[in-house]
């Protein structure tokens, strides 16, 4: 079993499904035409894009004309925020509300805007990573243009009360954007029922290709362009369309969204088994909400050890996972999400994220549970800060 890679980092990216690759291939080969051209191969490409747009729209209960293809989740987040911020600014609105646990594609955009004269409120979350909709309501001012709150968190898997936040925004006539990059394929997303005005998604999180995503913009919303140039995407997003990518995205999205309940059933069973077993390890804690949680997400801290060491040892056993430790974040601070839910730095350094996907098997889950406790034990035996007397606050 150690010769095979056991991929448990599906929140980072996913393997592209064979049927997705198959659907993309014609657009690299015979149907390579530019969708803006008038001749046959161009028209075929154009048709494929419009067909993909229909598929995506159906998956989230939107209209095809509300779907815009982008280069991925980060572009969609950038466009949603900057595009509305600039057009609302003209109406005298310069305040944006978000949370402290957003993806950097949202946080860094807002930090930049706040340096350019916009006002940004970064809402706290509770110790499970949940936003209180009342906090959103209380933060809204006459000059608020946008509320941007992620659907589900990429690190701790917490699923936010999106419908309720959307309802408040509708009532207060404030635009509502959600980064749903981690949610697609895991929860039933319905932009109409859930009062969503703008939504970002990315293909590679649900077995589609990298470098392609979508921004849903409810009709009637005026957006400033992020990328100017040609007349693609109704003149709102220039650049020759990534036809194979768009086709791959829609194929993957159709598969992902037609199997949400089965995926939920299987992955949450695996997830809960892992959480149950790893919780038996002394001085461990679950990060995030035990119930309002993405089906494939496990995020736990183990006191006295550091995340990167854990990942390297798991890698030596063929298991791919991730951590919110400083050493894996590229800075010396551990994950902003773990700090926002109130973890101390030294505890946050010992976090492990396992994100399960469609290909994971019961056998792989059992193998993880077999090897991980001894890795933790080995690292603790080497650790000068591991002190058995100290008991961590337990979560939940």
């Amino acid at each position, binding site marked *: 079993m150690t010769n095979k890679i056991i991929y448990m980092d599906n929140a980072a990216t996913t393997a592209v499904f064979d049927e997705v690759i198959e659907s993309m291939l014609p657009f690299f080969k015979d149907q390579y035409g530019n969708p803006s051209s008038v001749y046959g191969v161009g028209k075929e490409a154009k048709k494929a894009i419009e067909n993909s747009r229909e598929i995506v729209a159906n998956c989230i209960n939107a209209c095809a004309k509300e779907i815009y293809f982008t280069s991925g989740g980060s572009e969609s987040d950038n466009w949603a925020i900057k595009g509305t911020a600039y057009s609302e600014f003209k109406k005298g609105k310069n305040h944006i509300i978000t949370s402290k646990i957003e993806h950097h594609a949202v946080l860094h955009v807002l930090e930049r805007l706040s340096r350019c004269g916009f006002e940004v409120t970064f809402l706290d979350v509770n110790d499970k990573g949940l936003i209180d909709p009342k906090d959103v309501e209380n933060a809204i001012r006459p000059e608020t243009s946008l509320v941007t709150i992620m659907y589900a968190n990429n690190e701790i898997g917490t699923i936010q009360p999106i419908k309720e936040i959307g309802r408040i925004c509708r009532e207060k006539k404030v635009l509502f954007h959600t980064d749903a990059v981690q949610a697609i394929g895991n929860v039933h997303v319905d932009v109409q029922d859930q009062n969503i005005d703008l939504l970002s998604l990315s293909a590679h999180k649900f077995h589609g290709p990298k470098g392609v995503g979508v921004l849903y913009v409810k009709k009637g919303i005026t957006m400033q362009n992020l990328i100017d140039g040609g007349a693609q995407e109704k003149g709102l997003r220039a650049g020759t369309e990534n036809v194979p990518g768009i086709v791959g995205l829609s194929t993957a999205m159709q598969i992902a969204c037609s199997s949400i309940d089965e995926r939920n059933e299987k992955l949450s069973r695996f997830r809960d088994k892992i959480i149950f077993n790893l919780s038996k390890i002394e001085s461990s804690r679950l990060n995030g909400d035990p119930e309002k949680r993405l089906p494939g997400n496990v995020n736990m801290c183990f006191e006295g050890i550091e995340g990167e060491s854990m990942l390297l040892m798991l890698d030596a056993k063929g298991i791919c996972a991730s951590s919110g430790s400083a050493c894996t974040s590229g*800075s010396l601070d551990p994950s902003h999400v773990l700090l926002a839910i109130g973890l101390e730095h030294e505890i946050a350094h010992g976090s492990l994220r396992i994100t399960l996907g469609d290909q994971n098997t019961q056998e792989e889950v059992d193998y993880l549970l077999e090897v991980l406790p001894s890795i933790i034990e080995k690292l603790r035996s080497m650790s000068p800060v591991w002190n058995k007397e100290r008991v961590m606050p337990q979560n939940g």
Partner: protein
Amino acid sequence: MFYSEKVMEHFSNPRNVGEIKNADGIGEVGNPKCGDIMRMYIKVSNGIIEDVKFKTFGCGAAIATSSIATELIKGKSIDDALKITNKAVVEALDGLPPVKVHCSILAEQAIKAALADYYRKKGVDPEPIVGKIKNCHDECPIQHG
């Protein structure tokens, strides 16, 4: 990750892990807040470091630099041990990624902290011999709050 084979080898099979009872010197550097702590124990006889052990909380590089540092000073004279720089630690590991260089500084400081403790225990002011022990990540390339 971008670690050399030597780093991975020391990380996977760290040398001299553990504690020394009645150690002649114990040095601890780093800070759990920053995600790495090294504690080094030494046994000294006639100016020679006869035994050395370590315990480290930290990333792969922190464990590997601790391990190689113990190898570099075991059996050496105090004078030789004091000459070991973080560069020597990096070289002995066939290089470290830039963001991990601070781990080699930590290893150098751990050796010095253990020797400083050795002198203190003997009633000798360590600073003229060992120099000042740098605090957590004084020379760290990345700022953190």
